[in-house]
């Protein structure tokens, strides 16, 4: 099977059936063992499911890396309130395209994960909040949900277990901020997609004011495998603190961009050189953004020594985020790239918090001016200070997300900014 590209380094647990359209149907999915884990989960009971997920060390794949089992255990028990599980399928981080593929190729894997998760946290309703632009993925997922309903795998008394869980696929309207968990809740409820102030945390007051857990598509897709095979089994891959496999979305100047499922802790350089076939011919590596556009940029030296797990990337000055690896070669105009990213965040800022609302657009304007050759050296100091004022001061982290690429690029590629400012020299301006 040649789903766009594959590699011998891969450990295909979640992505095993990528490229196989028959896995989308319920019939095909059941042949692949889907819904067996659900049966097992019902036998285990919710607390044992949570313990197993805790044992596995599975960490949230949406970017924050919070241990999933621990998150589930925050949910109150026997409080008599409706509980909700939200599946965050609003995959919008620039550079990220793993959730889309998980939904396109193996929707029943996700649905099963959602049902197990809902069972564990005693939720009666799962909402899969799907990014508005994911037309194909949401259609496939919607069909899969229908099939599962018809087969009695969703709804009342699932597989005779006495457990009732509904699943609703909700299509977003296309705003990045609705991928932030509380912004997603507001959007789901029909309000403006604006993040909420925490506390209260979602486990206490979440969607519709009720206890809620929110998990990423990839996280929930991993759950059936963990329940089926046990926590220890999952720990055969990855590191002590970052166990398991992870989808890596590689884009940019590599020969074979794509989704690769690798054990956590895989060396970044090896990912680029061996898994992705190296930098395109005749060019050399300049920079990598390892975790989606909102993490600091790494230079070639940092890339060379970086292992791709949550701690390893932090040690090299960036963050694993959602493992969206954007690779840039020496033709890349860093100033332009950073300006483009800042523009994205300015466009997507919800506008609640002053530092973000005003800061994102101000930073974009300064970067645009520098890019247009009208910058001054003072602008670099201003950029650093302004983005500093935008860090850790807002309700959500969108504001911080601008600061990361701006500050890291000025720190690591200052010469490039200065060349543009002093001599009007642009990289790749041919």
């Amino acid at each position, binding site marked *: 099977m040649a789903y766009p590209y594959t590699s011998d380094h891969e450990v295909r647990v979640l992505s095993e059936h990528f490229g196989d359209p028959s896995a989308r149907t319920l019939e095909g999915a059941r042949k692949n063992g889907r819904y067996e884990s659900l049966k097992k989960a019902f036998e285990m009971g919710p607390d044992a499911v949570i313990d197993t997920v805790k044992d596995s060390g599975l960490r949230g794949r949406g970017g924050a890396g919070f241990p999933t089992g621990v998150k589930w255990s925050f949910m109150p028990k026997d409080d008599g309130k409706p509980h909700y599980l939200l599946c965050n399928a609003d995959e919008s981080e620039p550079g990220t395209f793993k959730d889309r593929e998980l939904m396109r190729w193996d929707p029943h894997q996700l649905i099963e994960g959602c049902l197990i998760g809902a069972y564990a946290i005693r939720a009666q309703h799962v909402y899969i909040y799907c990014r508005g632009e994911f037309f194909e993925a949401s259609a496939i997922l919607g069909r899969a949900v229908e099939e599962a309903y018809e087969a009695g795998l969703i709804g009342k008394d699932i597989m005779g277990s006495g457990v009732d869980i509904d699943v609703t696929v909700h299509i977003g309207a296309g*705003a990045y901020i609705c991928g932030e968990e509380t912004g997603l809740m507001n959007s789901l409820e029909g309000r403006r997609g604006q993040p909420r*102030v925490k506390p209260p945390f979602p486990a206490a007051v979440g969607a519709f004011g009720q206890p809620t857990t929110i998990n990423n598509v990839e996280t929930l897709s991993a759950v059936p495998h963990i329940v089926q095979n046990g926590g220890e089994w999952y720990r055969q891959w990855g590191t002590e603190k970052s166990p398991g496999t992870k989808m890596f979305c590689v884009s940019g100047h590599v020969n074979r961009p794509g989704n690769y499922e690798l054990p956590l802790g895989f060396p970044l350089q090896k990912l680029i050189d061996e898994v992705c076939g190296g930098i395109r011919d005749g060019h050399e590596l300049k920079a990598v953004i390892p975790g989606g556009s909102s993490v600091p940029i790494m230079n070639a030296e940092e890339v060379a020594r970086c292992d791709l797990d949550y701690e390893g990337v932090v040690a090299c000055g960036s963050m694993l985020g959602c493992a969206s690896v954007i690779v840039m070669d020496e033709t890349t105009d860093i100033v332009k790239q950073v300006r483009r990213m800042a523009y994205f965040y300015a466009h997507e*800022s919800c*506008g609640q918090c*002053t530092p*973000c*609302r005003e*800061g994102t657009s101000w930073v974009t304007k300064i970067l645009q001016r520098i890019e247009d050759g009208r910058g001054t050296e003072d602008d670099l100091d201003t950029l650093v200070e*302004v983005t500093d004022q935008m860090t850790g001061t807002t309700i959500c982290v969108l504001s911080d997300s601008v600061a990361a690429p701006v500050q890291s690029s000025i720190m690591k590629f200052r010469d490039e900014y200065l060349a543009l400012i002093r001599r009007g020299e642009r990289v790749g301006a041919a």
Partner: protein
Amino acid sequence: MSPSNTPMDNGNDAAVETVTLTIDGDEVTVPKGTTVLKAAESVGTEVPHYCFHEGLSSPAMCRLCLVEIEGAPKLQPSCVTQAQDGQVVRTQGDEALRQRRGVLEFYLVNHPLDCPICDQSGECMLQDYVHDEGRGHGRSREPKRVFGRDDFGGDVLFYGDRCVMCTRCVRFMNEVEQDPRLTVVERGNRSVIDTFFEEGLDGTKWSGNIVDICPVGALVSKDFLYKQRAWDLDHTPSVCPSCSQGCNISLHTRDNLVQRLKPRKNLDVNGHWMCDHGRERYEFLNRPDRVTAPLFGRGHARTAMGWREALTGLVERARATGDAAVKAVVSPGASNEDMGALRALVDALGGGDIVYRMERAEDEVVLKGYPTLARRRDLAPNGRGAEIMGATLVGDDDGTGGLEDLADHEGVLIVLGDELDDQSEDFGRAASTFIYLGAHPSEAATHADAVLPVTTFAEQEGTFTNLNGRVQRYRQGLQAPGAARPAWLILEALAADLAGRETAPTTAEEAFAVLSSRVEAFAGLTYEAIGDRGAVVNETVQLAGD
């Protein structure tokens, strides 16, 4: 009266659980559940804020009230962070100050800095905060985003470029008036407050409040536009004269004219709010047609005289009248002191009936999010006071009629404050003595033997009793023209002369003291006890229901 309207005394509950924290080095004890921002306020430290407003929900989005709290990984919004035992808060720490300076700089990135032509200038929280804590110079050299001006309807004009996006206005309309006419459209830096439809705020009843709570010059009053500079205005604590709710207000005056009315916080009466009906009605206080000297003689050719002469003449005339029956009309816009003095004079003349007329609206206009506040049906401030003083309500709901007995009355006739608009020139023709006390001349007072100039409520100090029996003080904001004097001063002097007493009250406070000694409902109340929040009349007094 409805029990839910009974003001609660929430100041002396000993069972309130408290927490003790340290704010800027000072130990502070506050009730559990108090926010850090309010706790700081209780010791006189104002933490700058825009989105927080006591009368609204707290979205914690302006990010200006962030403070340092020991043990917290980053700065915390003090408007939503609850005070905890042992918490150590720094509102003036380096990090908090640095952050505030940063946020203030952000506010100015797109702000037009048009203070010289902005109505808010002088009472602008952006001006104040930037002067206190902001940078001397903003660093932005980029072109500013421009929204321009928009007529929101009603009395409200919107200057989008001055907006700090605190959304107080949106929340007021959603949460308090509960008529969601405003929203934030677009997102990010393109966010702007807007109305949904063409009619905007037209037809809303409380939207004037959004101008008050707008911390900057984004929402301004059309009525007040370019009229005065905020720093030129004198503020006088007062009570709204336009209905029986008795909203606490400030008279904003200059050039001896009322320039605008603003609500004054009183959680027992009106919260932070007042209605548009009351807000719009201040021009009557600026009417130029005034009686400025005591006038004697029936008909149009009257003689002006001084007060001593006038009072002496009136006393002699009253004595000559003998036991003629007395009838009096009082305006429900007169103060308790005025009404009490009128009662004293009527009694000194041998007693008689006092009536009042009330203009009544068809419905109450309740503020849904603050339901103890409404524009009441009675469109005068002191109907309850008149009732307590034993006056009888007569006439129709439009405030006319009901004076048939008085028009042809042959004894002593006293009219206080009622301009008798619906009466003919023949009113009081048959009266043996007809005294008209008013601020404005009246055609129907042609046959008055004496027209005595009195002050308007804005020109005197006094009290009104609102529909719930709450007695509230208002202060003098304007100078009275010519020889106009408070009605109570004139009436008490006359009553004292008639009764042969040596002294009469010379201040409103004394007049009220006399009143409280005479009228059971006011017993024990003093100006000091009434204070700024008002005090309810004695519970033993039965007030008629609505």
